[in-house]
């Protein structure tokens, strides 16, 4: 792999950029692999990368029906944080956070992980109780965080309306300084390039049309480019997980919903941190290009259309203008939707399935992007050892039968 650096960039500039290598190959599918990953988004590519890097399993295919990183990786609001309430979820997201912190160097690809801090606002006394509970739990789990009052919030975000006149005055917030945002596309590309360099075949425009299953064991997949065999198959297909599960003959405790986001026109920097509010339903940050990136709520119905309902966008912008009245004259450039696969407890599934050798990594709901490296890392471990990684173990499908749910609705909320 051609290493990237400032010096390298200068050298290429002198040769008119004519000698850059491909960032990943466009290989022909082999007949057989050790592991097939279905889904070439951030999580799938990360899984493949860690399989190769940490477990020496390089004979891996990532099968992607469209273009890599084209699903929710390309459609989210890029927030990365780990201040989850329950131990199980906190462990998973903090594992991910630690990987984020060295990711650009590990991948030799600048994913622009910007630890500018995340505020989760509280507008009611119950919000504040929940915030205190979560921050206390975070602290004892070794995750950074503090509880701020309205004055503390105002100091960090001077442009926000922290007055008592607001319809829902801001009473305080949780503040995780290590949290932030990253450049979403670069995460997929960085993992793809690094996985490819270790020998992983990334097969784009390759759609899985069925699973090869015999005696309750998977041994490959059917695709529009022919059959591909492997004794271990990991499905990492976010919104489309339910469709894949149906092909394999079982159901999942999932519903796929539209989740919308929108951006303003580029503005000169005005907001240097990430602000999220579950209560008034909106969250916002500003990219390095100047766009305000705004997350909307999830629509109540199932949808694979990558579109949601307009009132959801209205309510979101009402919340943003409630918090930031000065943005009233700013203009909204674009909106879009992703397909989020949500579990009843707002936590993911990292699990074996009724089919031996077939594993699913799904159900991330609104919180998938921040988990990308951690999810891939523990899922790779699980696939490599055919046994749940200790961090992944609580996220088995079995919990929906035993009742041992990890209810993160409070911490996940609308906000990611």
């Amino acid at each position, binding site marked *: 792999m051609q290493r990237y650096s400032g010096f390298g960039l200068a050298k290429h500039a002198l040769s008119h950029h004519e000698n850059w290598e491909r960032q990943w190959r466009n290989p022909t599918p082999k007949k057989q692999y050790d592991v097939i990953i279905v889904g070439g988004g951030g999580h799938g590519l990360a899984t493949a990368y860690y399989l190769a890097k940490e477990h020496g399993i390089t004979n891996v295919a990532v099968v992607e029906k469209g273009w890599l990183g084209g699903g929710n990786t390309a459609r989210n609001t890029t927030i990365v944080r780990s201040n989850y309430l329950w131990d199980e979820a906190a462990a998973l997201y903090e594992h991910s956070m630690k990987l984020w912190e060295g990711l650009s160097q590990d991948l030799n690809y600048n994913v622009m992980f910007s630890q500018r801090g995340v505020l989760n606002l509280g507008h*009611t006394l*119950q919000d504040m109780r929940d915030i205190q509970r979560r921050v206390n739990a975070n602290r004892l789990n070794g995750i950074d965080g503090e509880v701020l009052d309205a004055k503390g919030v105002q100091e960090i975000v001077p442009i926000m309306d922290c007055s008592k006149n607001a319809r829902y005055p801001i009473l305080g917030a949780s503040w995780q300084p290590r949290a932030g945002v990253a450049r979403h596309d670069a995460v997929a590309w960085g993992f793809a390039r690094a996985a490819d360099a270790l020998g992983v075949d990334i097969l784009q425009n390759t759609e899985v049309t069925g699973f090869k299953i015999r005696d309750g064991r998977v041994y490959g997949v059917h695709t529009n480019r022919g059959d591909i065999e492997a004794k271990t198959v990991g499905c990492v297909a976010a919104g489309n997980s339910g469709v894949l599960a149906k092909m394999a003959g079982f159901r999942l405790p999932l519903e796929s919903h539209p989740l919308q986001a929108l951006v303003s026109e580029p503005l000169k920097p005005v907001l240097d941190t990430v602000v999220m509010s579950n209560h008034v339903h909106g969250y916002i940050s500003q990219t390095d290009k100047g766009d305000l990136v705004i997350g909307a709520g999830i629509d109540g119905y199932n949808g694979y259309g990558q579109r949601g309902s307009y009132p959801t966008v209205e309510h979101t912008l009402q919340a943003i203008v409630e918090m930031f009245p000065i943005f009233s*004259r700013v203009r909204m450039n674009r909106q879009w939707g992703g397909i989020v696969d949500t579990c009843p407890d707002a936590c993911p599934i990292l699990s074996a399935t009724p089919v031996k050798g077939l594993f699913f990594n799904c159900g991330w709901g609104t919180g998938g992007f921040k988990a990308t490296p951690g999810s891939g890392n523990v899922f790779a471990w699980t696939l490599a050892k055919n046994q749940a990684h200790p961090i992944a173990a609580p996220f088995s499908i079995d919990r929906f039968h035993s*009742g041992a749910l990890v209810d993160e609705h409070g911490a996940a909320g609308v906000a990611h």
Partner: protein
Amino acid sequence: MSQSSNQPNRLGEGGRIDRARTLSFTFNGKRYQGHAGDILASALLANGVDIVNRSFKYSRPRGIVAAGAEEPNALVQLGSTEAAQVPNVRATQQALFEGLTAQSTNGWPNVQRDVMSLVGKLGGRFMPPGFYYKTFMAPASMWMTYEKYIRKGAGLGRSPMERDPDSYDHLNQHCDLLVIGAGPAGLAAALTAARGGARVILCDEQEEMGGSLLDSRELLDHQPAARWAEQVVAELAGRDNVTLLARTTANGYHDHHFVTLHERRTEHLGETAPTVNGYRPARSRMHRVRAGQVVLATGAHERPLVYAGNDVPGNLVAGAVSTYIRRFGVVPGEKLVLSVSNDHAYRAALDWDEAGREVVAIVDARLAPDGDLVEQARARGIRIIEGAAVLEAKGSTRVSGARVATIDAEAFTVTGQAETLACDTIASSGGYSPVIHLASHTGARPTWNDEILGFVPSLVKGVHAAGSARGMHDLAKGLADGVAKACEALSALGLSADAITLPQVDAIREGSGCALYQVPHEKPTLRAPKQFVDLQNDVTSAAIELATREGFESIEHVKRYTAMGFGTDQGKLGNINGMAIAARCLGKSIPEVGTTVFRPNYTPVTFGAIVGRHCRELFDPERYTALHQWHVENGAEFEEVGQWKRPWYFPKTVNGKQESLDEAVARECLAVREKVGILDASTLGKIDIQGPDAREFLGRIYTNKWAKLAPGRARYGLMCKDDGMLMDDGTTSCLAENHFLMTTTTGGAAGVMEWLELWHQTEWPELDVTFTSVTDHWATMTVTGPEARKLLAEITDIDLDRDAFTFMDWREGKVADVPARVFRISFTGELAYEINVQANYAMHVWKTLFAHGEKYGLTPYGTETMHVLRAEKGFIIAGQDTDGSVTPEDLGMQWAVGYDKPNSWVGKRALSRSDTRRADRKQLVGLRPKDPKVVLEEGAQIVFDPDHAIPMPMVGHVTSSYYSPTLGSGFALAVVKGGQSRMGETVYLPMADGKTHAAEIVGTIFVDPKGERQNV
């Protein structure tokens, strides 16, 4: 033609402006003049302003390129005051008004001499697409510092820093037919449907309706096309069944023909809305339109050619030249070179020539062009260079020449020797792309059409594209298409319309165009001077080529890697060219590279317009009880509970100093425990339940038993979801054999009501029972404390004797002459009466209680005191002491679980799952801090071993915690793993300040454990 004295490029006549009305405006601090009817862009061009902005990445000088929504460069910051600032206004879409103040969004110290341009010039080659992914990685700790500097270059315009002085609103519209675009096809469609009697809305984004007819050379019925447009608009305006919306952009096409139309109501009048009849109207208005059918008559955008130096001011798209000349009487230069691949663009040269300026040459990529316009140009003696194109524009701040040579478009090579033509303007045209954005919003993928060299929309049911919007650029055909599409649309609705008589078109014969996107250069693309594809984001042909070399092969990858199409113009000019370049690099056809997907908005929309009136005090409803006025007048501080404003506490002012929360609550608590207090409990949800099966229903929906509750009695009940987790609680009273009154938590009221209906309608429709919300009908006041009986006795005819009216009874009678139902229910542990009266009389009853209550020390208390008092008694609050993961058993409320009820009530089965049977579940307990002065933090986490290293195993948390003035100490409710079997054990609470509190696990009842006080 002569020219206007102080506007060097203004023609003495022509155009649709009002020369009698001169308007002054300021751009980058300099004053200029324009005319009514101008847009800011035309006024700037009239004044010879070449550089209107600096580009985003390389800081190159940029001028006006287009005349409409597709303009990528001419973005300005509008506003003379801080509060009126609007970022990124497109000068081509901003009407000129007196006093308009605008600035370039980029350029420092100014747009003429910009320091950053040095960076662009010197560093440009070090900034290929994706360069930041490849650098700034070492050392890892430095990224935040690098980012700080990168961010300094971010953004175009700036956000205002003050509150918006304007308001916005919404108008919900419904129509049979929505016609978007008032050009020839749209006008024809709207007129057809209007005469057919349908409800029609016609909108157009421009200042004036008519679209291309306003600057057309063609005649309709032997008169200028604009005249026909005026006549049609006038007829439509006179019809009751038509809503005409000019200055209105259809910005988003949502499901089932819901379309949002953004109407700029005052932006042509001033930077803030002017006062009309003493009222300042909404600055802009969002029409939320539900249409039966929709005709998209959105026209087409001209595609510029991609050649070296095509971003230097003085490069325009050909159609814009015609628009400026014919609509605004402005010629944007002296000497024109026109580079084209089609006939239609010849209009620019003819208009230029007629304006009396020099057409240096028309450079046509085709070998033998022969349409009517070509012949007219030849007849005027204009030089036409065939089989050639402009390879490169010369000049830095304004075009100074055009290098022209013959080319082989298919082989992508320059075939001849280049010749440099001196000129100050280069106009180009590579063809016309239908405006398919709105159709694309519906999820329908557009398809490539080789004949028109563009994408045409795919259409979902009920959407019709007409005229240029589907590549039908011929005027006569476009008009007829509008009529046909209107008829089709109406017949789909079961309505009908007759075809209207269309005006006669004096046809202009046009030959076919050729495919040309990127013009070849003598040097390979990566070495040639920059050829811009997306001007706003500084994306060049070289960037696209490099992206494809690096493996970015899907057009979506190319766009994301280079940022092509991600600007505020969403690539209206550049996307197709970019796809063509990617296709060339990959050896594929354009449709093989992908399709182009557009998302709302078509053009950016002010947040305020989307928000409408739902802001400030109208952001969300505030719900008040019937006693709200009293609370306000008596100084209550309020708590948000759902949408309700509930009194939180009633601080008194003593010696000029207002009590703190703690002081007020301590006083209120003691008043209740020692004398009598009163709470407005009207917000509790109340549901009237009637029917022979009401009792059966309650037994299924609550965890506990209801079979034997007698009329006149009340009972506390728990409600679970079918996963066994508590969802709500409250008391339900038996009013009569088949008649119950259920109460719910304040926040849970609506959810419980829907929950009851869900089970009744979907699972047990055979049960004869009805539910009606009476939350608002009854006002509820809780009078509680040792003196409650004495106080109430003064104003009621109900027998309050302790044996006649026992705990958990309810009685009817009069309170303060008002019929009331009084419930002996206690949430404080004290003697308590909940008085329910019809809400219209509540204030009278409340005030009467106070009139009689003074001698008993009647004290109003709020939610905070209520919380303390109930916690002292171990009463839970659903949603505070529970969080959706707590069963009745976890709460130690087995007494409220009817294990032996005959039915499998909601939640029962789940209680026997393996996880709900675990012994170490978190269970509700009391906590008594070892240090009585300590009030534990709500949300504090509990550990067994305070010396354990981080991560510490947490075994629970504090759910409620207060200082109890009755106990004289802090106390808390908490959930602790296996807590119910750990009574007396010590747990620890390590806090953020480094202190660790110790507390003893105790029962949940802190005051009056035997419950004697409420039974007096």
